[in-house]
């Protein structure tokens, strides 16, 4: 057994509002040029998690004006090292589209990233990957992805990436990785 010693119970309130609609996704009425860009973005995976950046909710906005494309991304964590890799990948893939001459990929902090930006598919992909994902906030009771128990305590708020924490399931005695949204 590890000796982290925090063992904080995860006992915050559960926000039961629906979480199955991502905040920003390809708009159904997007002009064809922008929809084409969205389709490219939907194929780009996060380097640290097994899901598309659009399912994680990193894409705030796509704008296309002839050959000029602007993509605005909202990082989960501002210091996430993956974000520069993602910026470069977006720039390269979008620039490869026919008719695109110039691509700007900016970061925005106007509205912070929250779990509401994660799509239902993305949530399911993270769960299958073995991550316990809160509905809204980090302090909610955690569900063990192995045995389903909610007798899970926080070992340490830091894990293999900035967006993961290490918890411990007291029922099946397994360490559990918990997806960690920025604190609200």
């Amino acid at each position, binding site marked *: 057994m*590890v*000796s*982290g*010693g*925090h063992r*904080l119970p995860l006992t915050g309130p559960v926000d039961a509002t629906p979480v199955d609609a991502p905040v*920003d996704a390809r*708009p159904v009425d997007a002009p064809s040029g922008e929809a084409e860009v969205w389709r490219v973005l939907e194929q780009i995976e996060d380097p640290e998690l097994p899901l598309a950046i659009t399912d994680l909710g990193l894409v*705030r*906005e796509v704008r296309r004006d002839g050959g000029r494309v602007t993509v*605005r991304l909202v990082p989960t*964590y*501002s*210091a*996430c*090292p993956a974000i520069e890799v993602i910026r470069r990948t977006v720039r390269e893939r979008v620039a490869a589209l026919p008719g695109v001459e110039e691509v700007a990929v*900016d970061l*925005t*902090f*106007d*509205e*912070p990233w929250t779990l509401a930006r994660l799509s239902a598919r993305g949530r399911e992909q993270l769960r299958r990957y073995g991550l316990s994902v809160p509905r809204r906030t980090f302090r909610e009771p955690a569900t063990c992805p192995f045995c389903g128990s909610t007798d899970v305590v926080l*070992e*340490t*708020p*830091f*894990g*293999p990436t*900035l967006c993961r*924490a*290490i918890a411990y399931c007291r029922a099946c005695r397994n360490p559990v990785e918990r997806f*960690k949204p*920025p*604190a*609200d």
Partner: protein
Amino acid sequence: MAQPQAAAPRLAPEVAARLADHLLAAADDELVLGHRHAEWTGFGPDIESDIALSSVAQEEIGHARLLYQMVLGLQGRSEEEVDRLAFGRPPQAFRNAVLLERPNDGGLEPPPEGEPAWRGEWGFTIVRMVLYDRADAIRLETWASGGHAPLAALARTLAREERYHRLFAETWLERLAAGGPAAAARLQRVLDAVWGEALGLFEATDGEAVLVAHGLLPRSSAEQAERWRDEVAALLGGMGLRPGRGPAATGGRAGRHTPDLAVLLEEMTSVWRLDPEARW
């Protein structure tokens, strides 16, 4: 569909220059303490703490980067210059508070004969982290309620991330303080020794009054210090510890540093100096 990004408000040149000075000091705080935290990588007292300090370091340095980029924007320079701004200055051009450049052993006791010069003192590291992270939270809250929209948005983002640093540091302090009279006495010695330099976190940068007058800084550094004293006294009191005494030890925000900073910069910038023009 998301709203278009609000255009960055235009600041008068004098205000922009003062804000750049103010943010440079904060960025230097984050970079220098981030480097000190990173020195724990591979040496933490347990693997969770090792990973935590490494993650916190990564975030502090990442926050420094974003603040340096904002400084460059305010100065009308390219964001591409961020590495030069971070690594290309002599110690006297740094504006971090002196507390943050202190080595991880706190410099409180000289290493015994024959021991390597660097030894991590976990109690010192945790005390410094608690004191700094509380100060940083108050600073971020001040920016978040200030009148410069891009800074307010960034501050709200950083504050959500910093809460986990505080959770980690304050849980550890509580754990150490509960470790018996010897442990508590040792923590108290650290608190008494660093108190003046901790108050130095609230040394104002030149021309701060301009930022207060323009609503960019709704709370002056002195007002932030008052709030910090109250919060820290309550926090420590709950653990059987007490704040230190005495006046603030200032100078860092004016570029007056201890020799510790030169040693830190020598190591931190060694790779960058090999080839400052290298592209990654």
